[in-house]
């Protein structure tokens, strides 16, 4: 939006950093001060396309491309009437056809294709589905209302918690002062050793802290229904059916020959003495001479019992 200029007064973002672009239903932009000036009376025509516009239809431009702005605007308007949900249709295909229809209308309006026809279509639809539109609107209203209520509740809970915390802090401060006083009293009037008294008080303070830590963690609700903290089980967690646990079965080597020596035997029976030891680089890569030795011995022994068979 940096290089944006108002088409009427040619003010740009560079000249006036607080420049605000406004847009109306026709999709042509205008800066805020020009809107003030031109629409002093509350209505007027767009300086570019001469369409009659009302002042309170002007909005702050959110998108760089005014055409997008226009489309968003039209979409909002069209969807107010075309407010069917997937549940209102018998099959997914019907619903998709309906969505396709809505998109076509929006596209036509945005790109000025068949405006008269399209508007007629919208009117017709409005007439045909009057009842349904109203019902859906109500439904939508109810949902919104419920959400608001939930947010309100959340706010209240939040406040209550804040108060609680404050209360606790005051309490803690008071307690600290009391303890300090008690310690001073003790030091002043007791006959016991000062060192001992200090130690017992330190002990007590520590215990109190431990107790505090043991207090149950507080839980908080959110409007999304997710509960954080607390010990109760989360109702939204679906238990996962894991099935039987995986059990490792060691691989059995099909030898078809004499049993080759295992890792220990390679060392203990001295096979390892007849291969060259690995170099430093090989060891770094994890290649040890007993691996090569074992492989050679396995290859030598496996398949010795091989008998010729026919595959024909």
């Amino acid at each position, binding site marked *: 939006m940096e290089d944006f200029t108002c088409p009427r007064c040619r003010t740009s973002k560079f000249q006036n950093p607080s420049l605000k672009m406004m847009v109306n239903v026709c999709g042509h932009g205008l800066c805020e001060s020009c809107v003030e000036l031109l629409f002093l009376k509350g209505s007027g025509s767009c300086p570019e396309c001469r369409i009659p516009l009302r002042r309170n239809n002007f909005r702050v431009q959110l998108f760089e491309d005014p055409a997008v702005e226009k489309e968003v605007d039209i979409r909002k308007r069209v969807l107010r009437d075309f407010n069917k949900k997937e549940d209102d249709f018998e099959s997914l295909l019907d619903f998709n056809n309906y969505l396709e229809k809505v998109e076509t209308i929006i596209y036509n309006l945005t790109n000025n294709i068949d405006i008269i026809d399209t508007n007629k279509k919208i009117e017709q639809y409005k007439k045909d589905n009057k009842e349904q539109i109203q019902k859906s609107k109500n439904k939508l209203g109810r949902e919104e209302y419920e959400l608001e209520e939930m947010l309100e509740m959340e706010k209240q809970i939040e406040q209550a918690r804040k108060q609680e915390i404050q209360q606790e802090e005051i309490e803690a401060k008071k307690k600290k002062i009391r303890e300090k006083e008690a310690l001073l009293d003790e030091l002043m009037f007791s006959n016991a050793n000062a060192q001992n008294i200090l130690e017992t008080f330190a002990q007590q303070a520590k215990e109190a802290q431990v107790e505090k830590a043991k207090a149950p963690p507080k839980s908080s609700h959110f409007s999304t229904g997710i509960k954080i903290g607390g010990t109760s089980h989360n109702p939204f967690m679906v238990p996962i059916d894991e099935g039987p646990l995986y059990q490792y079965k060691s691989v059995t080597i*099909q030898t078809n020959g004499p049993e080759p020596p295992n890792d220990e035997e390679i060392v203990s029976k001295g096979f390892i003495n007849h291969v060259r030891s690995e170099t430093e680089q090989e060891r770094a890569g994890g290649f040890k001479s007993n691996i090569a030795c074992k492989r050679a011995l396995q290859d030598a022994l496996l398949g010795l019992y*091989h008998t010729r068979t026919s595959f024909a």
Partner: protein
Amino acid sequence: MFPTSTQAKHWMYSSEEELNELREKTNLKHIQVYGRNVNDSNKYEYYLTPEEEKIMLKHYELRLRDFCKRFQPPMPRCVIGTSFHYFKRFYIHNSVMNYHPKEVMVTCIYLACKVEEFNVTIQQFVANIKGDREKATDIILNNELLLMEQLNFHLCIHNPFRPVEGLLIDIKTRSTLNDPERLRPGTEQFLERALLTDCILLYSPSQLALAAVLHAASKIHENLDSYVTDTLFGEEGRAKLMELISAVKAIRSIVKMVDNPVDKNQQKMLDKKLDRCRNPEYNPDSEIYKKRLQAMLEDDDDLYQAITSNVDEFNSSALNMSITSP
């Protein structure tokens, strides 16, 4: 692990007779598919006989070995072994008259280099080939996929070289033989000759290794019999011992029979005969092949279809040439 490998499952045969039978079948099928118009009695005047195919293959196996030995940079033995396996497997189910062994041979080696992790680029590779290198590059790269397909993508080969190392370690550890390293030259020589025979398709790599080691021992007048019977097989293996002894004997006798190089005159004659009866569809010098390749490159489906429809007609008949693995 050899016992669970595709090599053990799909590419081991029971006898030389079985192999020869399969090869004869391949030869017969080729002639039946492509030589319908040729009279049965004189078909071998034009086409190669199974015997002649065998001689051709023998000749090219020798050339394969020499090529590998002269290869720069020098290649490890397992690449040679693997190339031999590929070459032999390919011609069990394919006729020499369809795919020229000269071309399949280099492709086998090139593929073996890759599979055995012996890293050479195609440029490095064709630098070892005399003649038109560009053409050789094309042939190798075009045939590579075909080769893999015919091998059923069973590319992992168990060669007898590592088992030999294992046996030598075992002999050094568990037998009283004096300086077992003396066995090495004899063993290597034996295995090299073994690659030229069919025994790599008949016996497991460890059996081949054992036969090689025993052969080398007998050459230097040492006796490893007690090592084999007592140490290697022991109590549990006693029952299997007879089988192994006969296997070792058979391997040694097969390897002993390795023929001398093919007679040059005969080879020349066969080369000429092959040039005449070679299937032009797979001959890179023929017009049909060039047209087909061009069509393939241009992705011209119609033209490709038109050219290949002939082949499909043949193949859809009962005489199916493309053979899936046994």
